[in-house]
């Protein structure tokens, strides 16, 4: 009997350890719901949560690949957001170029920034901290020079609508409740259920170890319930924001890359043991290089999102964004030593950061004190990672 209890306790402990951050997210969210007397749970605030934190998710996904290579970070993402935003503002508003052409130019500018930094980091082996610290000054300086210290506003509606609008289907969404949102939720759940069950069945058919049905089905039910609740809330406001579709797309693509491609595998291997990876015939320089090209590319995408959201390009845009992105990764379970971390975890981390931001705003925490809280949360997350890792290393020997 007692051994049964012990096994149960071990299982619970493993479950808690594996899902610490999800549980933390739920606890923090409920805390703010209670403290704000339910305002945190209003449809409008749920919508705000998505709109305000879209850039964090995008940047954090890029940052994750850098961190995977060995705990390396990119300090320049905020400055890159500012610079690319400035380029967009000048070309679109001041010069009136075609918006799609400008968007492509902006993304290419991001890639160029990444090539610049990646080259020094990967092939000359300058420490990433130094290169990106230099980039942080360099790109913000350039941005401010381009903007001349002023804010450019007046982006065309055609541009803003790409990121800021909501899915509206005529007839269906003309009333107070946007039914398209609920339909979207149902479709998402259906795809998720079919995909999960199908992979599980195919695994079973091929005779591989499968997840226990109980945990499989409870996971499906839980996730679908969350998705439907979210969509229901959004349907009471303006429906599904376009930016959510962008985020789902980015997260899906990067989840696939990290989990299912050889390219993604190389990142984990590099962070786990660089020498072993190199001796396995993998070009480690190229992995470093692509990590930094990628993060700058995503920063450029985030710049478009941010400039559309603020309907302007301003010299202070992107300030401290790197900290949000780095924080999301570590809170989301990425290892400070590299080699460990998942896109799904990073999304949880980013949402937790977002909930903290929004929740503290709603209940009126002083903005200085907000920084204190975020700083402590980040530190605690990394301490947690390092200490649990140390324990694991001890069990190795």
């Amino acid at each position, binding site marked *: 009997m007692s051994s049964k209890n012990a096994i149960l306790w071990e299982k619970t402990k493993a479950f808690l350890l594996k899902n610490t951050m999800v549980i933390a997210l739920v606890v923090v969210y409920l805390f703010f719901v209670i403290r704000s007397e339910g305002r945190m749970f209003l449809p409008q605030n749920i919508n705000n949560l998505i709109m305000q934190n879209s850039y964090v998710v995008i940047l954090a996904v890029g940052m994750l690949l850098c961190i995977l290579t060995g705990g390396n970070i990119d300090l320049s993402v905020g400055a890159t957001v500012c610079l690319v935003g400035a380029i967009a503002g000048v070309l679109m508003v001041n010069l009136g170029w075609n918006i799609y052409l400008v968007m492509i130019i902006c993304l290419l500018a991001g890639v160029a920034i990444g090539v610049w930094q990646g080259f020094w980091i990967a092939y000359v082996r300058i420490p990433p901290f130094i290169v990106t610290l230099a980039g942080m000054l360099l790109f913000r300086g350039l941005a401010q020079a381009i903007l001349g210290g002023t804010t450019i506003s007046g982006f065309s509606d055609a541009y803003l609508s790409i990121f800021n609008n909501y899915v509206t289907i005529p007839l269906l969404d003309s009333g107070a409740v946007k039914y398209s949102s609920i339909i979207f939720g149902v479709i998402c759940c259906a795809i998720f259920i079919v995909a999960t069950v199908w992979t599980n069945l*195919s695994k079973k058919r091929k005779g591989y170890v499968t997840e226990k049905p109980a945990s499989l089905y409870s996971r499906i039910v839980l996730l679908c319930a969350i998705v439907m609740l979210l969509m229901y809330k959004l349907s009471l406001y303006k429906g599904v924001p376009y930016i959510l579709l962008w985020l789902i797309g980015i997260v899906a693509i990067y989840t696939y890359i990290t989990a299912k491609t*050889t390219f993604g595998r190389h990142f*984990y*291997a590099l962070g*786990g*043991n660089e020498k072993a990876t*190199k*001796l396995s*015939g993998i*070009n480690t320089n190229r992995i470093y290089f692509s990590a930094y090209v990628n993060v700058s590319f995503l920063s450029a995408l985030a710049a478009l999102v941010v400039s559309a959201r603020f309907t302007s390009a301003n010299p202070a845009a992107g300030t401290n964004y790197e900290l949000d992105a780095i924080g999301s990764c570590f809170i989301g379970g990425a290892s400070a030593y590299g080699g460990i971390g998942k896109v799904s975890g990073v999304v949880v981390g980013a949402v937790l950061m977002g909930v903290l931001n929004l929740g503290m705003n709603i209940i009126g925490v002083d903005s200085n004190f907000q920084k204190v809280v975020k700083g402590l949360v980040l530190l605690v997350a990394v301490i947690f990672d390092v200490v649990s890792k140390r324990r694991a290393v001890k069990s190795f020997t």
Partner: protein
Amino acid sequence: MSDHILEMRHITKEFPGVKALDDVSLEVRRGEIHALVGENGAGKSTLMNVLSGIYPYGSYEGEIIYNGKPCHFQKIRDSEKAGIVIIHQELALVPYLSIAENMFLGNERGSSVNINWNETYAKADELLDVVGLRESSHTLIKDLGIGKQQMVEIAKALSKNVQLLILDEPTASLNEGDSMKLLNLLKEFKKQGVTSIIISHKLNEIAYVADQITIIRDGAVIETLDMAEQAVDESRIIRGMVGRELTSRFPQRESRVQDEVVLEVEHWSVQHALYSDLTVVDDVSFKLKKGEVVGIAGLMGAGRTEFAMSIFGKSYGNDIRGTLKLHGKEVVLNNERDAIKHGLAYVTEDRKGNGLILSNPIRVNTTLARLDKVSHHHVLDLDLEYKVACQMKEKLGVKSPTVEQDVGNLSGGNQQKVLLAKWMFAEPDIMILDEPTRGIDVGAKYEIYCIINDLVAAGKSVIMISSEMPEVLGMCDRIYVMSQGQIVGEMDAKSATQERIMSSILSVNKGA
């Protein structure tokens, strides 16, 4: 009744699965130079680590009597306070600090908040004078050659009021002149009453300086020879070092050697990766036939690993010269990827450091060198990967519940099997095994020998680098002996003996 500065009594030290020292007793007389000799892994360094407190009191059995009193050293500091200083084979100097700063590192002159630099440099100059090193104490360590660095280490030991100086292979990387200087310095110290324990493979040097020689083999003391009582020559020492019976620790094997030469290296030279004036592989020529197991015997630091890695896509070294022929055709392998494509595999001696990713499961480690085999257009087929990982695990008998187990949680023997699985999965024609059985138990060793035999039976060729001579003799068809970067002997396994190998290793050191 002689005066013993040190008595180590019945020391037994165990590591998980290995008894490194088994009831070892050692007596060192005051004011003598005492030499410890034995093969790699015999337990010399472990014994010295026990003495100096690197393995704290309580982690071993037995007792240490030093200056007539039992000692319970918890850390190096404790033993240093008592006047025991150990100088390791790898020098522990900080390259970008000056000689004086290094000498008093952790032992600074003045108070901890106010270092007295004048005293530091004056004292350092004094000590440099004692060891006969004509350098300013302001010189940075990085600007010194390895021989002079060794002298700085000794001066550093002197600064700690050393009574018992332990040197672990002090002359391994020194040239003849520097070695001579160092040995004479030890004799000088002896006159001043400093006792030394020296670990060395260079028997001629030992014969030159030692008063007593203790021979250690397989974690036990074989004998202690007193140079004053009997004439001891090198062959006498060698017999003591290797005098072990070959038992049936190896599976039955028959030669599978075919005539085709699969790998041929000519005039291969490699410079050290950091010190490019140091030649680590010197004009080596080498042949490997299909189905053959060729051993490279030698001591640690002989240049074997450097040779193997430089062949494997230039993964080690600078300024690599020489020609490499695979199946009779000359090729240039510029990186590891090229090497793998050409059917080479290098199974590293350092499985934790550069072989495996400990934080990843068996499955991921197994396929890492050949992800293309489990992917289509760079998209991984995780089901297929799982399947092949299971197959390799079965084939090599890795003991683990599933292939999702992190490699870091496996025992050394099982980790080694995963590493072999990884490279067998790469399907090479030529497999270079660098110390494939280091640090694993006898049972796992036997299994790995069986795997090697299976490999050659399947028409592969194997290069086995090993410091364990019985293993080389028991497993190989042909043996090269390497020493100081050169091939110093080539022999058929049938005619080879441990004595022959050892004397060809030592023959190079003779001139020193």
